[in-house]
């Protein structure tokens, strides 16, 4: 109520100004406050629908436009008709069952209405409710989901995937006639059997069905004489194509299906990874020089590749993403080692001892979307040969290990004390240094530039100090010099003696009389010699 009063006051105030634009604002404000007021009267949905219908005329998109239509507090998505995933799921389930089971409709309605009544309820509570619901009535709820899934299978088989079909068909046609017929017959058989799986089947049943199919086909190829003409590689290719075709057909149904806990697991893992944002390369003891730009670029690429995992449909492509991401990690090691080799460090090739810690770091930084769903999907539906051999299998195993490690991560696994770990987890201590910069290019650049500026500043200060020092020394030297000179002057004072006249030998002086007269030359006669 107080809100309403405040709204009224504001309207009055702006009303006095009488400016047009403010009038418009006033109108909007009035609308908003009216909304708040009516909201308390519990007729939220209707009003929202009214305002929503007006909004498209504006170019500005409010945050409220992005919310789930159900007002559950989560964001909606056009792919889910403006609902969030959970509301959409329950809505479609409701639509599915409404025509078949009226009482089922009521229970979903109840769940939705309960949720509407308490919009601040967290998702987990609702998820619990949903789980309880499926516990109390598992057959029905599973029936719903399989109903939906089967209709999807039908849809996909009738509508899209023509291209896919033709691709697989073209591949089959390249084989001999009996093989072509045999394989297409078996695939059709399998797909129709898959659609007819019992209503209460779980995702594990689907997985078993697909795995059994792979196994049967493999055995069949080994035994049946019509396949004996095929080369080893052709057989592998055939198995690949088969897996590709099946998974393309079934992906929408079996990836993160509603009859599994995949979505909850995804969310909890995502939350877990977010809470571990402070973990550094150093804490994981990965021996890589993360200060080097080249290394960082390689690590960024690795993160991009692992995020791409979710966009692929086929297990094969998903595994390729993981391998590619791992490859970048090894690139990072190579770059890091090249540097240290130049510096005289030991030459080494990265092994699993180095790789796993850095892979953990990459997953922590990437927080790949729907990681758990992806892992579950690959584990359930990839052909077993993929998972237990080859690079794909190896790096997929590594990724499973990483996820396992992250889930069980505690103070001990980072060599921290319990207190340190707790203070990091609660956010009291924040990670400092290079690692926090690992967010985006811009921030990293800022950090680097800051560092550079800091270094330059230090140097400048050093120079300024030495300049001052020099000045000081100079003035000291001057003083000393002056003093010494003064002392010298005092010790040996300069006395100017009268100037002596110059002696000019050519001047006719009075010859002193005391001198004898100059010797006169004497002439000596020849006879005397």
């Amino acid at each position: 109520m107080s809100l309403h009063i405040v709204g009224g006051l504001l309207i009055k105030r702006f009303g006095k100004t009488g400016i047009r634009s403010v009038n418009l604002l006033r109108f909007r404000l009035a609308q908003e406050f009216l909304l708040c007021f009516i909201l308390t009267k519990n007729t939220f949905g209707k009003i929202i629908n009214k305002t929503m219908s007006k909004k498209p005329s504006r170019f500005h998109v409010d945050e409220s436009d992005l919310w789930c239509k159900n007002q559950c507090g989560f964001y909606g998505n056009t792919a889910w008709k403006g609902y969030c995933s959970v509301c959409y799921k329950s809505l479609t389930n409701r639509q599915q069952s409404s025509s078949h089971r009226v009482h089922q409709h009521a229970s979903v309605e109840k769940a939705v209405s309960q949720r509407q009544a308490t919009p601040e309820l967290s998702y987990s509570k609702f998820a619990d409710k949903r789980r309880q619901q499926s516990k109390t009535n598992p057959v029905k709820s599973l029936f719903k989901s399989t109903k939906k899934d089967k209709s999807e299978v039908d849809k996909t088989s009738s509508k899209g995937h023509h291209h896919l079909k033709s691709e697989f068909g073209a591949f089959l046609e390249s084989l001999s006639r009996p093989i072509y017929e045999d394989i297409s017959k078996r695939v059709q058989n399998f797909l129709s059997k898959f659609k007819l799986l019992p209503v209460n089947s779980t995702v594990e049943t689907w997985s078993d069905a697909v795995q059994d199919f792979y196994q049967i086909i493999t055995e069949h190829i080994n035994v049946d004489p019509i396949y004996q003409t095929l080369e080893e590689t052709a057989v592998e290719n055939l198995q690949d194509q088969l897996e590709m075709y099946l998974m393309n057909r079934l992906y929408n149904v079996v990836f993160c299906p509603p009859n599994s806990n995949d979505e909850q697991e995804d969310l909890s893992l995502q939350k877990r990874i977010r809470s571990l944002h402070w973990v550094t390369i150093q804490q994981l003891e990965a021996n890589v020089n993360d200060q080097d730009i080249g290394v960082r670029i390689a690590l960024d690429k690795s993160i991009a590749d692992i995020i791409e995992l979710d966009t692929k449909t086929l297990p094969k492509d998903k595994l390729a993403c993981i391998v590619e991401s791992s490859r970048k990690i090894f690139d990072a090691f190579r770059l890091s080692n090249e540097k240290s080799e130049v510096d005289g460090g030991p030459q080494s090739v990265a092994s699993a001892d180095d790789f796993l810690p850095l892979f953990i770091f990459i997953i922590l930084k990437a927080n790949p979307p729907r990681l758990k769903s992806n892992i579950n999907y690959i584990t359930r539906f990839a052909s077993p040969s993929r998972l237990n051999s080859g690079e794909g299998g190896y790096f997929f195993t590594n990724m499973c290990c990483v996820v396992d490690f992250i889930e069980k991560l505690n103070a001990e696994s980072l060599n921290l004390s319990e207190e340190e770990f707790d203070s990091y987890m609660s956010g009291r201590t924040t990670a400092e240094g290079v690692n926090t910069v690992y967010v985006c290019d811009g921030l990293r650049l800022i950090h680097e530039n800051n560092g550079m500026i800091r270094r330059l500043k230090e140097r400048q200060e050093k120079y300024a100090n030495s300049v001052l020092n020099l000045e000081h020394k100079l003035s000291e030297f001057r003083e000393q010099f002056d003093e010494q000179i003064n002392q010298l002057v005092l010790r040996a004072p300069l006395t100017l003696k009268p100037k002596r006249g110059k002696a000019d030998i050519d001047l006719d002086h009075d010859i002193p009389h005391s001198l004898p007269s100059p010797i006169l030359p004497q002439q000596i006669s020849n006879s005397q010699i």
Partner: protein
Amino acid sequence: MAARGASVQRPNGASQGKICQFKLVLLGESAVGKSSLVLRFVKGQFHEYQESTIGAAFLTQTVCLDDTTVKFEIWDTAGQERYHSLAPMYYRGAQAAIIVYDITNQDTFNRAKSWVKELQRQANPNIVIALSGNKADLANKRMVEYEEAQAYAEENGLLFMETSAKTAMNVNDIFLAIAKKLPKTDPGARGPQQGAGTVQVNESQGGQKSGCCGGK
């Protein structure tokens, strides 16, 4: 996988002999030279080093044994103590394992013994285990006696060699010894074997779920 591991004998391919593929895991504490050992084996005189391989974590190498070609897929594991609990995911479904210790470090030998125990308890029951005392070139700093390790290996039915990745001593030999000991399945009698392989697949899946995808 076993299904693809031992290749099927085909009328047109019978003359080429069998190709068997085996998964081999490397276990041992960090810095005992696991990866150097494998790099020596893969890069060594046997065959050209495969440029396509990345790092030294996952490598493949083929050896010829009489009429059989044995292809090793070598899975390296992180040796640090903190990653110890993840090891089962790596050695699941492995047909062979090399446990490496450093002869100049008694602790690594004790650790190797615990690996042996764990593998015997948890891994594939037919797994071929080899014990490798690495850094044999540093014999003057030796802390683990040859006789002691030899006796331990005999007691537990392990292949044992002292190796040196530096001088290549016994490196190829230990892999060859493993290749000889591995069962080269007779294609005619593959039926039940493959069945066993299937069970293993399912087991491994179950394990994986509990290991990395489940728990909640």
